[in-house]
């Protein structure tokens, strides 16, 4: 019998009300909520953020609109109408940017929030609490969704106003459902990115890389038909592609078709499942990887 | 280079920090003034080790930062090696090496050698010379074997050695050491002190510390600083001599007796208390420690909830000098 065995046999475990009632859980919603509230509270300390994050994408969107105007003429071009089926490329793109804000956030925010904790030295204390990691991830994601929604709506409103376009609100309910499903799918994607940041430390490079690649294959400024055929297949692997396309159609035409909606919802449902499984698995793997090397707190 | 009588001359240096708390971006709501330095004047002759001793927040670091040209004084000035820190700040910087006891003041992503070479170049050394100098100093710090490892892979003590060696890179006549041994393991702290005493005997060193034995061991002269003022300034021996007529009485008790009552007792020159976890340590000075011990122990005995655990009458230390002068203990 080893010493450890002797000790564990002879010494009764220290107990307390907390310990006795403590049961490990797969998912701790309270922790997720608390974590999200903490993030939001910190974000509220910088109220300018919301405005800035609403206005900043305008500065990235505008160059595309201006370039397309300079090359194809104001608002419309025959070539664009031919491949996309829509006559106004500004109207086409702005709604695309609106949805893509969530994609961008899913890449940046969860990872950055980890990075921030890593920098301020709070990541390790966070990870020694008996809270499932996934709760922390979901908490971070929830608070980001709130922030992203505010800035995405600011973007949509200001851009529509500045470029003088408007969208149909008749199909707003299915738009919201699809948006929520997409956000859910993106959470899984965000977990994957968070895992990568644990491993690679410096997120700016990685997230920029992933972000730019996703932006390139996503039908934000241009329809999928503008992409080379191989890139179109890649685009369908991105959880947001279906959502962008269908939401755009709903917002521009305002016509709701049940068959199209259901097939989009089914497609999104599959991506949710896929990305959550892959996301959680890769985050778990990354966590083990960093623990083995003892480099979690470092940067 | 100008020849001066003193390596460091500080003239009536003051620093007031004003912090404004803002509720909105434009409306200041609350102004807070902190007088970190209240007219410090000091001369340090060439080749002397000079200690600044005081508790945390006494103004030591602010003084060092002012001298290092990192913080601009509110009024007054200082000269390093004859160069005014305000008018000739570049020359003043060239004349000194600064070591802040912070292992983060080197690049963790660079190796020890790369760090040293990089800084050497900022001190105008060509590459080969920088390399030679880096190796020489790393050798002296017994770091040559680890010279090519990234600083992040080294131990805390080793990183501090690099920080320390970095301050010596251009062999400056004046060195500012701000808490150089803080947080170091005792062996390395001892090594460092030995190095300062033996190898840097030709340098003028301004050392801030809140370890009294360190000041006692290293310094030719010591200034006791509290709340931005120099309370006393002399050799460690003379400082202690000034309180030699007093004894210091150390009593450890369970419970927390009222210190004000003790201060009012006959023959008590000064008294301070620090308490932790239900225990308290009382330090009191008096002309006759044994006589006071008798009365004080009786007094404590009568207090409910207070139990004396240990008492001792000691020869005066620098801490006692400090207590005598300021009513505070240094290591508080």
């Amino acid at each position: 019998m080893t010493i450890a065995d002797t000790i564990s046999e002879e010494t009764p475990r220290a107990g307390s009300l907390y310990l006795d009632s403590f049961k490990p859980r797969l998912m701790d919603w309270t922790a997720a909520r608390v974590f999200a509230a903490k993030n939001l509270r910190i974000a509220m300390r910088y109220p300018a953020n919301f405005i800035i994050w609403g206005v900043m994408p305008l500065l990235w969107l505008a160059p595309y609109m201006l370039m397309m105007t300079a090359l194809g003429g104001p608002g419309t071009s025959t070539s664009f109408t031919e491949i996309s089926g829509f006559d106004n490329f500004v109207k086409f793109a702005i709604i695309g940017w609106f949805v893509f804000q969530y994609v961008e956030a899913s890449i940046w925010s969860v990872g950055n929030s980890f990075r921030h904790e890593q920098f301020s030295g709070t990541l390790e204390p966070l990870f020694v609490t008996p809270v499932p990691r996934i709760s922390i991830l979901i908490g971070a994601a929830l608070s980001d969704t709130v922030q992203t929604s505010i800035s995405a709506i600011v973007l949509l409103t200001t851009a529509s106003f500045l470029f003088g376009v408007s969208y149909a609100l008749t199909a707003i309910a299915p738009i919201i459902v699809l948006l929520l499903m997409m956000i859910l799918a993106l959470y899984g994607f965000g977990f994957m990115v968070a895992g990568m940041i644990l491993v690679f430390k410096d997120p700016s490079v990685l997230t920029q890389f992933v972000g730019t690649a996703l932006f390139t294959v996503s039908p934000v400024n241009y329809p999928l038909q503008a992409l080379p055929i191989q890139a179109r297949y890649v685009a369908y692997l991105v959880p947001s592609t279906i959502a962008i396309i269908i939401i755009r159609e709903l917002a521009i035409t305002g016509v709701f078709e049940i068959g199209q909606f259901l097939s989009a919802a089914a497609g999104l449902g599959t991506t949710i499942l896929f990305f959550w499984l892959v996301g959680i698995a890769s985050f778990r793997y990354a966590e083990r990887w960093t623990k083995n090397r003892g480099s979690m707190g470092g940067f | 280079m100008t020849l001066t009588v003193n390596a460091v001359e500080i003239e009536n240096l003051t620093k007031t920090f004003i912090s404004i708390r803002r509720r909105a971006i434009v409306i200041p709501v609350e102004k807070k003034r902190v007088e970190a330095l209240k007219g410090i004047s000091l001369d340090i002759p060439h080749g002397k080790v000079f200690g600044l001793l005081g508790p945390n927040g006494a103004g030591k670091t602010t003084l060092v930062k002012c001298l290092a040209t990192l913080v601009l004084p509110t009024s007054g000035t200082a000269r390093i090696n004859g160069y005014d820190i305000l008018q000739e700040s570049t020359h003043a910087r060239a004349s000194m090496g600064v070591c802040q006891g912070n292992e983060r003041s080197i690049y963790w992503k660079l190796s020890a050698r790369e760090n040293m070479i990089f800084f050497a170049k900022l001190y105008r050394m060509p590459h080969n010379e920088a390399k030679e100098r880096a190796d020489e100093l790393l050798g002296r710090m017994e770091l040559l074997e680890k010279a090519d490892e990234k600083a992040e892979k080294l131990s805390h003590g080793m990183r501090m050695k690099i920080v320390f060696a970095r301050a010596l890179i251009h062999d400056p006549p004046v060195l500012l050491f701000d808490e150089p041994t803080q947080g170091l393991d005792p062996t390395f702290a001892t090594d460092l002190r030995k190095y300062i005493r033996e190898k840097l005997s030709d340098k003028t060193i301004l050392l801030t510390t809140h370890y009294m034995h360190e000041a006692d061991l290293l310094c030719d002269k010591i200034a006791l600083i509290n709340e931005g003022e120099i309370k006393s300034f002399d050799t460690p021996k003379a400082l202690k001599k000034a309180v030699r007529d007093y004894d210091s009485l150390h009593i450890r008790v369970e419970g927390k007796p009222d210190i004000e009552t003790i201060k009012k007792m006959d023959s008590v020159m000064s008294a301070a208390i620090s308490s932790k976890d239900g225990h308290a340590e009382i330090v009191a000075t008096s002309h006759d420690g044994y006589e006071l011990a008798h009365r004080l122990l009786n007094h404590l005995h009568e207090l409910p909830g207070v139990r004396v655990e240990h008492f001792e009458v000691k020869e005066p230390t620098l801490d006692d000098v400090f207590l005598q002068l300021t009513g505070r203990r240094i290591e508080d």
Partner: protein
Amino acid sequence: MSDDKDSIFQKMWKREGFMAELRAINAIAIKQWKVEFSYPLSVLWFIVMPFLWFIPMLIAGQAVVGGSESAVLGELVGTTDWLSYIAIGTAFTGLAMSMFWGTGMSFRREQSVGTLETLMTTPMKRSTLVWGSMMHNLQHGGLGVILQLVAAVLFFGVTINAWGILPALAVVALSILALQGIVFALTCVVLLAKQGWMIIEFISSALMLVAPMAYPIAVLHPMLQYVSVASPLTWTVESFRGFLMYGFAAPGIVTAIVALLILDVVYIVVGILMFRYTERYVRRKGALSQF
């Protein structure tokens, strides 16, 4: 004091001057490379970044034009070769980004890890630190420009006028002063503001928006056109592209270069004054190490 020791200090003393500052600038640039390359992914990013930024623009352009010639662009700037126009124009993006972001962010990093104070105790001029960082960003961004141009020529069939290469490089050199003026100003922002990077993001994106990289400024709102004229980036990109597309025969090249020279003086003077004032202000507040 031994002779040997004495000489190190004495030698340093005698080396004061421009060469010493230059050595410091160089050391800072190299150090920055080493720190950057210790993050393995940054190497990868550094190579693919120029293409990645350019590709979505290329696809968007292709979607609206539908061919290799844009009549609309021809009317605006005199060339229908839209691909060369945006490929050469946006090649400058990487350099401008790297200049705008690099210095501020490296200050931020040094400030938060604690090396900034140490750097500030060395006898180099305070502004040397900013110049050193600029040197690094110029090398970094310059390589990006070259990579994108090479890719544009090899993969997208862009042609470059060989006679224009040297003058285009001269334009880049000429623009450095004015851009550095902006960098000084951005560094002040980082030293002063808690979330300085947001302001950098805003200012640099705004400057990019009014710069004629992927479109001529004629398509901008008239008010923005005025802003654009006052931005050194505008003239830099115009003359850089002018030389690379047409060689010495580039239209409007003299105007662009004169404008750039004037803006050089204005921007660098304002930038240096701002930096000086800020640096003193920060030291007065004793906030060099706070963040």
